[in-house]
């Protein structure tokens, strides 16, 4: 049996104070001043200890990011001088999909490597757009589950990024006719890519590449940022090339396991030339999620391509202007089209754009993807706040340019460990032992529209 894959985690505290959700307000003019029952001394999370030291050193007061909002100080102060507001900086973090909650949860996972656990029930809306409209199934009594999270049963999360032959041909002496394509496997259904924007210094890129290397996955990267510092990780890099420029990187192509070519009409004609340089090379073609994505998918899948990488917007939608659909619908369309054309087994499909949480990976796979590609989350793991000040050449509040590659890669590895463990939870509950078995298994999910139609529709429709 192959070695069981496990991601080691370690505690990597943040370099800056993360933006906290709550901040305490004190109406100091009402404070008795010398109260012996001061609630600040009694805080069970000791959050005011930090606050005191800030006061003493006359620093600008940091938001008390550790506040757990138990309301004990608010409710117990003898003068009632405490109140609480939501930190305005917290509310302004991120955007619609990358909500403040998503960002802080990502930080915490990168810090501890632990999966987010909380008490009380679910706090969010009943359903939502995109992946939030899907519930995954679980098994009970009549079907077996898999106990993955505590390691009692091994759940395999590896996928291939190499193509599969559609059949074998034999010579008369029963030896194989022709060569088999290489088999390239990655232990996670997650590839990295260089983020579209952000502070992308050598050290930041190096952190990502190093993490990809340690995890055994790959990172899609622009060839011009492959510097000396990144070169130890060449075996985990996927240079992003075009039809025009790939001839300039012939030595690079010899050293990498896969290249990504931007889609254009007739791109398949370049495949032979690339494979001549490196016969073991996998070829990935990147295709924007535009209106004709389904047609391109079935066109490209017919050629000797290994992986198709579809990229949408950062909000997880199609790149079209009117009524863009969510990734979940597009993945389904492309997957089912290839199934219809009997091409699905041959190529691998990976998707990027708007993959912000671990559940998005599992749900993408359920919709029919082999894996996903993430970029933004890598930056957030290194404390990025998605403030986009870097786009305007303003200093980064998280000082990303000072990231140490050891720190950055450890944070990313922690995040991936937490994501993988959460995938194991979901797959275990579904009774799935292999992420490859989950691909396109829509029967193991429940969709909001379907449940509404099936159950509420029959009750409430007049």
């Amino acid at each position, binding site marked *: 049996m192959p070695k069981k894959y496990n991601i080691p985690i370690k505690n990597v505290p943040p370099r800056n104070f993360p933006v906290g*959700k*709550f901040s305490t307000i004190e109406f100091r003019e009402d404070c008795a001043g010398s109260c012996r029952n001061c609630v600040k001394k009694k805080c*069970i*999370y000791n959050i005011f200890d930090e606050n005191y030291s800030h006061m003493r050193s006359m620093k600008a007061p940091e938001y008390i990011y550790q506040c757990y*909002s*138990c*309301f*004990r100080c608010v*409710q*117990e*102060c003898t003068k*009632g001088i405490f*109140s*609480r*507001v*939501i930190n305005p900086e*917290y*509310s302004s973090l991120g955007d619609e999909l990358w909500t403040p909650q998503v960002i802080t949860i990502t930080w915490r996972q990168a810090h501890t490597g632990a*999966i*987010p*656990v*909380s*008490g*009380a*029930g*679910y*706090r*969010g*809306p*009943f359903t939502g757009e995109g992946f939030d409209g*899907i*519930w*995954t199934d*679980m*098994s*009970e*009594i*009549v*079907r*077996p589950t898999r*106990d993955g*999270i*505590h390691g*009692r049963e091994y759940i395999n999360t590896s996928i291939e990024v190499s193509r599969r032959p559609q059949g074998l041909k034999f010579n008369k002496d029963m030896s194989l006719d022709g060569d088999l394509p290489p088999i390239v496997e990655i232990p996670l259904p997650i590839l990295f890519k260089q983020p579209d924007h952000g502070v992308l210094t050598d050290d930041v890129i190096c952190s990502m590449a190093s993490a990809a290397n340690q995890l055994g996955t790959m990172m899609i990267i622009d060839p011009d940022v492959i510097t000396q510092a990144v070169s130890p990780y060449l075996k985990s890099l996927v240079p992003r090339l075009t039809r025009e420029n790939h001839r300039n990187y012939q030595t690079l192509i010899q050293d990498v396991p896969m290249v990504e070519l931007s889609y254009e009409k007739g791109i398949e004609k370049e495949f032979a030339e690339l494979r001549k340089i490196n016969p073991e090379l996998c070829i990935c073609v990147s295709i924007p999620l535009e209106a004709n994505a389904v047609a391109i998918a079935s066109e490209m899948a017919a050629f000797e391509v290994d992986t198709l990488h579809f990229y949408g917007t950062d909000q997880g939608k199609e790149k079209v202007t009117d009524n863009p659909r969510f990734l979940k619908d597009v993945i389904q369309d492309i997957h089912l089209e290839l199934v219809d054309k009997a091409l699905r087994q041959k190529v691998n499909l990976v998707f990027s754009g708007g993959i912000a949480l671990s*559940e998005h990976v599992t*749900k993408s796979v359920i919709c029919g993807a082999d894996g996903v590609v993430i970029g933004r989350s890598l930056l957030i793991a290194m404390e990025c706040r998605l403030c986009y000040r870097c786009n305007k050449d303003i200093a980064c509040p998280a000082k990303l340019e000072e990231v140490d590659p050891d720190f950055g890669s450890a944070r990313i590895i922690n995040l991936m460990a937490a994501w993988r463990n*959460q995938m194991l*939870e*979901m797959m*275990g*509950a579904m009774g799935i032992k292999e992420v490859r078995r989950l691909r396109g298994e829509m*029967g193991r999910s*429940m969709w909001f529209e379907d*449940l509404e139609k099936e*159950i*509420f*529709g029959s*009750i*409430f*429709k007049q």
Partner: protein
Amino acid sequence: MRILRKRFLVQFLNSKSSITEYSMKNKGDLFKFPEASTMPSRFRNTIGKYIIRRSANCTSCGTCAEICPSGVHPKLKDYSRSVKPIEHKCIGFKCQETDHYCIDACPQKALTLRENPLLTTMGDFRWPAEMMLAHFAMAETGEKPKVDLEYNLGCSGGGFDKIRLKNSKLNNTPYDDTVEIDTSISLNKSEDERPQITIPMPGYSGGMSYGSIALAIMVGRARAAKRLNTLTCTGEGGYPDELHPYRDHVITQVATGLFGVTEESIKRSPIIEFKYAQGAKPGLGGHLLGSKVTAEVAAIRETVIGRPLFSPFPFHSVYSVEDHKKHVDWVKEINPNALISVKVSTPTDVDMVAVGAYYAGAHIIHIDGSYGGTGAAPDIAKKNIAMPIEYAIPKVHDFLKSEGVRDKVCLIASGGIRNAMDVIKAIALGADGVVIGTAELIALECVRCTNCESGRGCARGIATTDKELNKVITEKFVEQRIVNMYLAWRQQWCEILQQLGMKSIRELVGRTDLLVHLDYLDQAERSLYQPAPKSSMVL
């Protein structure tokens, strides 16, 4: 021995509780609901919808204390100065229309009134701040809140929050409290030899294990169950000795970890609950953090102090309905008087699972929806795995009906049932009754900060075994607050049933024709119903 027996007989005749125990088994109508009595907050500064500030201009003339009928301005004996207003009792700006609006009445204009900004930092989509405050008030007084708080609807934008009672089915006559309304349900509908257990309200308390919550909470809930003549559940952490006096009201849970399950605890319980899955973490076992495993917890669970405890998922001896039947038979053999409840979560084939559980011999099918509460569960499971209870109830109800066994089994729903109105909706969708967990904790002033599992546990002394934190809560407080909350709920149930022209809550089961869903109405019709409350929540 004879003396003992005599003493027991005297006790039996004297104590009310023995009579309630007796009635629970057979004659539900003997039971009288307890009286509500005020049980104020444990904390000095209560959280209200409004805040009243008193400025330095106050001359302590006492006008405000005299006029306020809600008791917002207390006047202490032997103390001439004004004290801090009790803000949560203030009915706010609607008081302007009355003749006792303290803001205008104050001769010094020393009082100001405004909405409490603290509310924006409380609550979430499912439990908005107002719903929590309303439950605090109900638990304090035993009556529906007097302040204008929205406690029937959350902001989740779906499920119960979009379902309303059909206007045309409600007769808008004022509530007449002299008319007897029956809110009892019977838990054994099969015609077997086992006891007919009837509880006087359509629900009982959910399992919370020893170790995950404070002992005072467990005992307090059992005391409340005894007074209300209903049931509570041990959860999966064993049966502490402190619960013995209430044993006729305590369900023993047999969960996948089998922690603390003994022959004795099975023998002494009126109902045995098999927990196959929990709605908050369907498909995953329970997890008690090492720090919560104190000497007492370890002893009762027969484990090692300080080591985290994982329950496996599923029962490693149950992989089919036949295996499940073996379990049920085993327990039925040990305790020939117990009813069997099977608690399952809500997968796509929950209807099949329910029918399977019924044929294996269960009296109660307990379906636990995915938005239920918990002491600690992975966020990913709470949000994503299994379907919400609103879908599961009609699915199971209809399937049991089509199989012709709906009348033979009691269908109990839980997981995201927050208030009295949700209970009505759940029953109208097809459940016989409900199981309540989180709402009881809210009655005990849980603020849903979700840190049940971090550090020393719950800062408010609820979900913790920390000795110091446990001091902030007492059994008496727990008992009375929970009794009060259910009395307030019952009042609401009776009002609604009367408006629907019903005499018993049993008539409501499966009456989906009494419900409407806002999404299925046209614009004009929808405007006749209260819209779902909007809120800009920051999670």
